């Protein structure tokens, strides 16, 4: 009881049974909202009990800390009879038990149970705990008897005695003092009978009573969201959901006075909430997480072992400079090692080093990126490839004493199987319950949210499609694009009183934004733990076999102090690795990426001409338009190029000043002379996060750690209050250093607007290395690089068809898919003159399964296919549609024409080089035979199967072949579609893409081609950028918002366009400012277009 202002006594109440939206479709409010509203109600504590999980606990804990609440942790555990048992954590042992209990039940059940599983065990809930499991993990936990879906309520359905037995059983498991008889009152008549029974049972068993409200949402209005979620969960519509929906809106957070009024007859039930709350001593601050130790040889500790490995590596990296204790690298390494030892992080570095070592042993390419590239220790250990000393990178960006945070090391690995091998290595090394992937909370956003809500509200399929279409995926948002206008354009009236569902849809769509829908798997974050990770956070099976995920997402893990190593799949790493293998096999050369010539002229020439299709990070349209102006000449220029086309420099208006200064059109100046050292390399324009941190350190006297704190204060979780505090400190520091007035304002403005979006220099440097390597391989080993690029699609900015056309323009020959020659992947073939060409692999045949292709390869290895019937007979895995796809794409043309495998390798090569002399069947003949081969002949006729030598069908003509290529493989090796219409386009005065460079700036031109990229970036104020490809190259067009509005449908739908407008040729950056658009009608109706990459 507390004394109120009017002198009466008010009863205190603490809500101890609350579900958040992290119960996934069983709760409607985020933990932050619940904590915030709880604080508004003046409640000192709140307990979050999400269903079978603790996914919302970290956010709840953080929010509670912010509001000065005590955050009690617990969970509702589904039992095997279908009832739900609420459990509250009393102490750390209880928390560990709860985590293990949830892990046990989650890992026992498949992620996505088969339908047959559900029917076979209708009575058993798939993800459910048994009473035995409860008994095993009961220590440190307090159980409640639950509300209308609690075990007592389920027991009461069978009768009073059954319920009493259930309560006795629970009391036996948890102890009489750890089991509370829960009373809930939601203004439901039927609940009263249940409450009377619960009270009767509690009296007989001497159980304490506990009032809760079984909260599912913070405020009454959110009941509607819960109803919608209920429908989504049960796959029904609101109209047909019936009594699955809430009876009323009473499951919200209620003030103590209202609860006291509801329970006037059981005041002890209310006062017990305060007593129980005081018993619950555990919070997530007391997690007990420890990073695993790295096993070191006898006589060494982790620090000494790390020092040894670092110095070994440093000698390899820096040479003898590393031995000289006064040298810069050595001093930096010593400084870092001292800090690492002080922060007790040696184990972490050794574990990452161990992963990198495993990759090297397995021949898996690996490179650290992110802030780790600021560390000389990481560089020496081989974790990163950028020399932070040489590049003067800021170590504090990676690690600082002040921050008290774990460092974050991201490892880029080749995507696919190789990354999976590394992940499995980590599991093996630390045990299935010692390591896990971080989760990714999938939230309601965009079209999927619109679709689900539309369906639940009962709109028919076309209406749902229209509503979902209203959710614009384009990054740029027109300020005039009000919801009213959007709905009106879609033929729907937001204010239509006769159909309130449209308005309801809109309101609900907004309300569910960012609410969690389900738990996914993060792309590569792994957490590890000393001992059992399932004592720290519950684990779940991932949808991918052999993987386990924690229930917290990446940020939550970081907030809770769990150390994460990101094992990220990077397509380009796979391309580099595959290229090296192909070069070794085909060119007989060994390429070492660590020892590439640093100043290769071919690389810089390609970059200066923006000839970058397929290259890492510098291939986008925006990068291409910047490259001729930036004109990279050194490696650091590539670092700048990678870092400059980012939201930070663009939004902060840093790009143009930098380019102008680089071209000598603007003098290089500095906000203050003291900052020259920091900004000299970027010509006085801050481009990287590290520079801003250094600016803060120099101008305001911040320490490295304080500067990093500044950066974090401005990240996406920014707090106005914290930002203001830091700004005050910044200004105060600058004033004490004599920087005032306009320079001070400029610096503050730069820091505050840039800190969030700025790109780290270390990150840019890591990416620049890969970009350089990709450019080097493309310039010198085009066949290998292109084959590897095609084998790792989809990735990058362009469609494979564009990559092939680009490579062809660079003189590379391609050979089509051929079941007698092709592997699953693209390979390199050499002709008699030693020229390399790329043989397309069978992975490009649409609809052909890899298992089938592998079966073809196995059968081919035994002996060549004599005819198509022979192929069909010997590869039973081959389905009819797959055989027809192969025939249509021309992959069967040479079946029976070449006695593969029967000749020596030399003879085979000679024959291959002279293949034009051989007799091939044409595609229609292959189709004719394939159609017959796939019809079952019956046992009587099978022995007599043989190729029908005669085919009555005519061969395909060129356009037909091209169409068949695009339909069957998505790419064509012949002429470009536009080339077939060149004569017609010449008559119309259309300029080729390659000829645009010869047209003077300001001339009115016409360009035509296949639209390969459509972009509408958020930073471009509604401008649309289009790339048109013809047979000579790619031409770029700029569409103003006005022109876009006028030609909206054509721009979105037409695969081939003619664009007329003024040519802009500024500093070798060529584009056409579109004035008029028209479809290229002779091609628009054909099927000769390749897909475009849209709306990046």
């Amino acid at each position, binding site marked *: 009881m507390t004394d109120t202002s009017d002198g009466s006594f008010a009863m205190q109440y603490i809500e101890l049974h609350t579900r958040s939206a992290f119960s996934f479709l069983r709760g409607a409010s985020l933990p932050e909202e619940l904590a915030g509203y709880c604080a508004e109600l003046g409640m000192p504590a709140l307990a979050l009990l999400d269903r079978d999980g603790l996914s919302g606990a970290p956010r709840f804990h953080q929010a509670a800390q912010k509001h000065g609440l005590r955050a009690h942790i617990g969970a509702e555990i589904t039992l095997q009879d279908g009832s739900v048992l609420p459990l509250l954590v009393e102490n750390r042992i209880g928390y560990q038990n709860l985590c293990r209990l949830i892990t046990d039940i989650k890992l026992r059940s498949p992620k996505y149970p088969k339908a047959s599983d559900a029917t076979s065990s209708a009575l058993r809930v798939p993800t459910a705990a048994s009473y035995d499991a409860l008994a095993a993990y009961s220590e440190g936990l307090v159980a409640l008897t639950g509300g209308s879906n609690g075990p007592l309520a389920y027991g009461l359905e069978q009768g*009073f005695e059954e319920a009493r037995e259930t309560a006795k059983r629970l009391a036996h498991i948890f102890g009489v003092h750890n089991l509370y008889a829960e009373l809930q009152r939601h203004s*439901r008549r039927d609940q009263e009978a249940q409450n009377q029974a619960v009270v009767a049972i509690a009296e007989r068993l001497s159980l304490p009573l506990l009032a809760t409200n079984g909260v599912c949402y913070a405020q009454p209005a959110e009941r509607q969201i819960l109803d919608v979620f209920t429908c989504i969960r049960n796959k029904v519509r609101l109209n047909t959901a*019936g009594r699955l929906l809430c009876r009323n*809106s009473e499951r919200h957070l209620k003030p103590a006075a209202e609860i006291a009024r509801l329970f006037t007859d059981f005041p002890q039930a209310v006062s017990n909430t305060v007593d129980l709350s005081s018993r619950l001593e555990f919070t997530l601050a007391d997690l007990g997480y420890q990073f695993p130790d790295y096993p070191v040889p006898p006589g060494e500790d982790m620090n000494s072992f790390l020092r040894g490995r670092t110095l070994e590596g440093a000698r390899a990296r820096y040479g003898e400079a590393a031995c000289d204790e006064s040298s810069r690298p050595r001093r930096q390494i010593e400084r870092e090692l001292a800090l690492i030892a002080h922060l007790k992080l040696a184990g972490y570095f050794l574990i990452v080093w161990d992963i990198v070592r495993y990759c090297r042993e397995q021949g898996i390419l690996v490179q650290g990126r992110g802030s780790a590239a600021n560390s000389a220790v990481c560089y020496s250990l081989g974790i990163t490839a950028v020399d932070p000393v040489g590049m003067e990178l800021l170590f504090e960006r990676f690690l600082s004493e002040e921050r008290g945070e774990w460092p974050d090391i991201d490892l880029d690995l080749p995507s696919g199987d190789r990354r999976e091998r590394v992940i499995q290595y980590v599991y093996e090394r630390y045990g299935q319950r010692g390591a896990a992937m971080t989760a990714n909370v999938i939230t309601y956003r965009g079209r999927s949210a619109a679709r689900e809500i539309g369906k639940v509200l009962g709109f028919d399929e076309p209406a749902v499609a229209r509503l979902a279409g209203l959710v614009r995926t384009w990054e740029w948002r027109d300020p005039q694009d009000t919801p009213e206008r959007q709905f009106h354009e879609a033929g729907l009236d937001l204010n239509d009183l006769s159909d309130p569902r449209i308005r309801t849809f809109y309101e609900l769509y907004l309300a569910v934004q960012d609410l969690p829908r389900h738990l996914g798997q993060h792309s590569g974050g792994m957490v590890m733990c000393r001992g059992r990770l399932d004592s720290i956070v519950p684990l779940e099976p991932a949808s991918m076999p052999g993987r386990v995920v924690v229930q917290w997402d990446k940020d939550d893990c970081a907030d809770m102090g769990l150390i994460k190593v990101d094992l990220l799949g990077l397509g380009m790493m796979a391309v580099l690795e595959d290229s090296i293998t192909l070069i070794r096999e085909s060119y007989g050369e060994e390429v070492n990426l660590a020892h590439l010539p640093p100043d290769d002229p071919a690389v810089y020439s390609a970059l200066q001409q923006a000839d970058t299709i397929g290259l890492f990070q510098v291939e986008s349209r925006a990068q291409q338009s910047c490259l001729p102006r930036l004109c990279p000449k050194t490696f650091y220029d590539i670092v700048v190029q990678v870092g400059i086309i980012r939201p930070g420099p663009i939004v902060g208006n840093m790009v143009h000043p930098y380019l102008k200064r680089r071209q000598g059109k603007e003098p290089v100046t500095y906000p203050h002379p003291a900052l020259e050292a920091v900004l000299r390399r970027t010509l006085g324009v801050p481009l990287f996060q590290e520079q801003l941190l250094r600016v803060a350190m120099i101008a305001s006297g911040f320490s490295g750690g304080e500067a990093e704190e500044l950066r974090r204060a401005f990240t996406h979780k920014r707090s106005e209050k914290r930002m203001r505090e830091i700004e005050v400190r910044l200004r105060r520091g600058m004033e004490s250093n004599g920087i005032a007035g306009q320079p001070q304002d400029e610096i503050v403005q730069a820091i505050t607007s840039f800190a969030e979006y700025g790109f780290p220099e270390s990150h840019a440097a890591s990416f620049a290395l890969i970009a350089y390597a990709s450019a080097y391989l493309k310039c010198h080993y085009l066949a290998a690089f292109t084959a590897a690029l095609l084998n790792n699609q989809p990735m990058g900015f362009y469609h494979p068809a564009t990559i092939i056309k680009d490579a062809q323009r660079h003189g590379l020959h391609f050979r089509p898919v051929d079941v007698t020659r092709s592997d699953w992947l693209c390979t390199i073939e050499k002709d008699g003159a030693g020229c390399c060409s790329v043989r397309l692999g069978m992975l490009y045949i649409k609809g052909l399964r890899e298992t089938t292709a592998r079966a073809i390869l196995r059968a081919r290895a035994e002996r060549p296919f004599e005819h198509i019937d022979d192929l069909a007979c010997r590869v039973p895995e081959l389905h009819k549609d797959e055989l027809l796809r192969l025939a249509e794409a021309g992959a069967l043309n040479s079946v029976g024409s070449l006695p593969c495998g029967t000749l020596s390798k030399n003879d085979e090569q000679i024959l291959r080089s002279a293949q034009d002399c051989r007799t091939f069947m044409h595609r*229609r003949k292959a189709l004719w035979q394939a*159609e017959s081969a796939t*019809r079952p002949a019956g046992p009587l006729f099978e022995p007599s199967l043989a190729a029908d030598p005669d085919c009555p069908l005519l061969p395909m003509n060129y356009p037909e072949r091209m169409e068949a290529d695009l339909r069957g493989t998505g790419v064509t090796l012949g002429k470009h579609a536009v080339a077939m219409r060149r004569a017609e386009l010449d008559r119309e005065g259309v300029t080729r893409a390659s000829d645009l460079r010869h047209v003077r700036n300001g001339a009115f031109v016409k360009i035509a081609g296949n639209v390969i990229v459509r972009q509408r970036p958020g930073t471009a104020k509604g401008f649309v950028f289009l790339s048109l490809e013809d047979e000579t190259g790619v031409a770029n067009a700029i569409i103003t918002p006005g022109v876009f509005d006028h030609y909206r449908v054509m721009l979105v739908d037409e695969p081939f366009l003619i664009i007329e407008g003024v040519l802009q040729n500024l500093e070798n950056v060529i584009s056409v400012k579109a004035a008029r658009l028209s479809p290229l009608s002779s091609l628009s109706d054909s099927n000769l277009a390749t897909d475009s990459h849209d709306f990046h």
Partner: protein
Amino acid sequence: MFACLVLKSGVAPQSCDSLCAFAVAFSPRIEQIAADAVLLDIEGLEHLFGSPHSLAETVAVRAAENGLPLQIAIASTSNAALYAARGFPGITVIEPGDEARTLSALPLTLLSTPPEMQQTLSLWGLRTFGDFAALPVSGIAERFGTEGIHLHRAARGEPGQALLPLLPDPEFEVAQELDYPLELLEPLSFILGSLINRLCAGLQARGKAVGRLHLQLKLDSILSTEAAEKSYDNISLLFERSISLPVPLIDTSALLKLLRLDLEAHPPQAPILAVRLRAEPAPPRVTQNDLFQPAAPEPARLEVCLARITKLVGAGNVGSPELIDTHRPDAVDVRPFRIADGKRLVRNFVKKLFRRAGTVATNADGSALLACRIFRPPVRTDVECSAGRPATVRIRMERRKVVSCAGPWLTSGDWWTADPWQREEWDVELASQREAKWTDGMPNAFARQRFAGSPGTLYRIYRELQTKVWYVDAAYD
């Protein structure tokens, strides 16, 4: 020889309906091979219309007169006639032996191939009938089986399947003109009985039963005085009724009773001059009774019984009650009566209704404690509240004090519709009160008696929160 008439594309659907009627004027043997195409066997018609050319021209002229835009083809095979009519505009007459050559130019999309085969032929680069026809039949048979052979023959204009002549559906309609206008139902029944007998005999001969019965009465223009007084304008000279039957019937007496009941409920407003009865035929009902289950009532008798009840209580009030799955109290729907589960349905309904309405309060151990009587419809009342709780309730025109109350029990729903609802229920114990005479509000004597209650009675009251109106919902025993 065959002629094929095909409507030009884009023609209105009603023209499709009249195509058969038009074709039958030329040949008794016709087959409707598609909604827009009719095939005619014209063997022997040269005696009537002359050469095939003359016949085709005659057909074209008459079609134009009838507003039917047609493409006409005549050939020695049905396939050739069909595809020529589909593919060539105007009139096409193919000489025997010239079928394949004539059809060869037609696009292959006209051939009725399954989509998968169409795709294959397209991949083969085949564009016309001629391309397809040129392929070796053995190769086609090997790849597409018999279906391919049929289509290959069709593409060459070779004979297809024999014509399946369209036979007109017999009309089940009887009519009788009366010598003098009938005003009474009794004499009309005799005439209806005789007509129904004739109708059912015709149906029975073809193994059919009555699926739906249409009655048309021609009325005298001289109105009865009573009708004239009501409204002259509203009375048509034709009086029509339709009776839908739950199962097809052939029982003449039952049909007559149903007709009589219907006419009693909806009498014509003038004397009758003529009677016309038309039956929509349906396959007769075939049932196999369960060996161990009592036989259900005859459908005919049941239907008569239901018709009698409907006559008494009004349409829409007869059927099986079904609870709607919602929290809304008393949400009930009436569905058509189903004989199979009638008894169980009612029993379950009552049980569910009682459970849902909370008419039986239970002890903690589940034993019954109280029962209550629900007023249907609920009785509107006035309630005065104090501190948000009912303080007085007006019962039998007298305001009675609430001694104690429990609640509120809140329910709400349909928030996404234009008609959301919210309801607040209370259980109230009213102070003792002398028996008072009921004066208003109660619907009937039964309810009045029940509602009177005894001193200190418990009531259930509720308020619709949208309208703020209070009702008495039930009294606890």
